[in-house]
């Protein structure tokens, strides 16, 4: 991707990205004469960033070793105040630093909840989106659906049971 292309918000030939703190958690990103406002909060291993209506969760502890490397000044964007540290323009194929969307987690409870109903049995074939388990956390119904097609290998919860977040409720094979 050529310099100045990509997100379309950069001046060709500038290459320098200034991050200015405006107030608590509020930052101005200055890129030549163009600028935008961003917000950040949270611990280093899960830093939340808000940028033009989008939200990203960045693991800044693991980030430098995987996506950041010293860059040539004419092709990289240097975040001021971090000498020697440059942000390489990402691309769809070489960006390990993704936001945390893990489809596996779809088979676990997202919060402490009660199992209201189990809609499948071991051995049953399911399609993507099929309702597997219905959880309930107070007023809300939390459907657990199949993240992909497959066969139910095991069911790791019972109706009425209080389940904890992160614990897988159904195994698919």
């Amino acid at each position, binding site marked *: 991707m050529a310099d100045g292309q990509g*997100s379309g*918000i950069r001046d060709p030939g500038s290459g320098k*990205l200034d*991050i200015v*703190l405006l107030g*608590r*958690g*509020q*930052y101005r*990103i200055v*890129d030549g004469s163009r600028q*935008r*406002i*961003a*917000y*950040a*909060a*949270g611990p280093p291993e899960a*830093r*939340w*960033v*808000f940028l*033009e*209506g*989008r*939200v*990203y969760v*960045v693991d*800044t502890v693991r*980030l430098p070793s995987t*996506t*950041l490397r010293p860059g040539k000044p004419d092709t990289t*964007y240097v*975040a001021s*105040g971090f000498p020697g*540290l440059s*942000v390489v*323009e*990402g*691309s769809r194929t070489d*960006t390990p*630093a*993704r*936001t945390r*969307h893990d489809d596996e*987690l779809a088979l676990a409870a*997202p*919060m402490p909840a009660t199992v*209201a*109903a189990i*809609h499948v049995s071991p051995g049953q074939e399911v399609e993507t989106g099929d309702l597997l388990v*219905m959880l309930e*956390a*107070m*007023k*809300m*119904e*939390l*459907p657990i*659906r199949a993240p992909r097609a497959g066969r139910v290998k095991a069911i790791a919860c019972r109706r009425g049971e209080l389940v904890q977040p992160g614990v897988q409720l159904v195994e698919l094979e």
Partner: protein
Amino acid sequence: MFRRILIANRGEIAVRIIRACRELAIESVAVYSDADARSPHVALADRAVRIGPAPAVESYLSTDAILRAARETDAEAIHPGYGFRAEHDAFAAACAAAGLVFIGPPAEVIARMGSKTAARALAAQAGVPIVPGETPADQRDETIAAAARRLGVPVLIKPSEGGGGIGMKTVRDEASLMPAIAQARREAAAAFGDGSLYVERLIERPRHIEIQVLADHHGGVVHLFERECSLQRRHQKVVEEAPSPAVTPALRERMGGAAVALARAAGYRNAGTVEFLVEGSGDEARFYFLEMNTRLQVEHPVTEQTTGVDLVRAQIAIAAGEPLPWTQDALQQRGHAIEVRLYAEDPARHDLPQAGPLLLYREPSMPAVRVDSGVAEGGEVSVHYDPLLAKLIAWGETRETARRRALAALRSYPILGVRTNGPFLCALLEHPRVVAGQLDTGLVDAERGALVASLSDELPPDAIAVALAASEPATAAPRSDIDPWATLRGWRG
């Protein structure tokens, strides 16, 4: 007018009602569960009473606890908000028995409109069109199938009890009828403990359009025009607007007239909403009674922004016995309003509700944009209640202006610490069919895959740079993710 009102609710709607009380110089009493001790509605009220532990059934749903709080604080009236006890006829009756004014319709009206069968019968009597359908008294599968065949496919099979779309099945050919009935019955029994089924003609690609009504205790009934709420995910509204892009003046008059006729037939009092399914658009559109909500709606602000009427103030005035201050002719819509509901949920994970700390939360402040919220930076979104954080309402001279304003405001509304549907709402407001106003109740579910996919880009370099800037030790001082409570446990009273 009342001297003191207790608000039997929490979150944004409790805050909304407290503000209305303050402007009327009425003292407000908040109630709260242990989970809400530090919530904005508790801080804002003139008095606040703890009513129980976090589970709603022991606090916000407890008639005893609420009436005790009202007695203790000498409240004269109770505003139920929406949800919790707002449509519970026994609660309204208990208020009346305790000598408290329930700000809503009488208990018997709540009971009648709360029964789908009774409400449908009343609508039919009042000459309001209803969707053909029935709950067969004989509930054997074959009888259900026969009823479905009489209506003619496509039909909808759904549990007589419950809601939220669970167990609802669409049948497009007679061959699928028996398996669909069996599956609907299983899901209904599992979810609601009752396998009774209802069959109804399927309205294809309907719009959900509702009419706001107000009825006083002196025979006055007016409607405040329509709201379109077709943008729903799994039968929960996410975006609402007024006026509806599909409603012409003639259709508006017919629908408004039908809603007023139903309210009169029901002996309705206070604010209520008559929901319709609408087939087609323009003067020729057909509308069918869906249900009547006997309370304030979540989406009431789009009516307020377009009619200039303060619905909460009107509710209080009606409950205090005042006559409606307007005739139907004096009411008018002006411009266009769009509301988006901000939920703590993850659109990438089937909208699963999210809980967690609001590390950073800043509401936009700009002309013609209103935010009704019940949370604050540093607060906690708990697992105990509905995940609605806030509603953003944008007004404009035209629909397009309102839509652009809503987008601009969402892009200036950072919420960090819990995932919300904010980015999804931005994508939805830019969907070509939403831009064009070509809405139906299936749009969000049909397009959600594409919309969610459009949100899962890789991380842009700017976001990485800001994440790193925020993590530099030099920025430790202004960091906003420090828990202020942790440092205070030693001295708080």
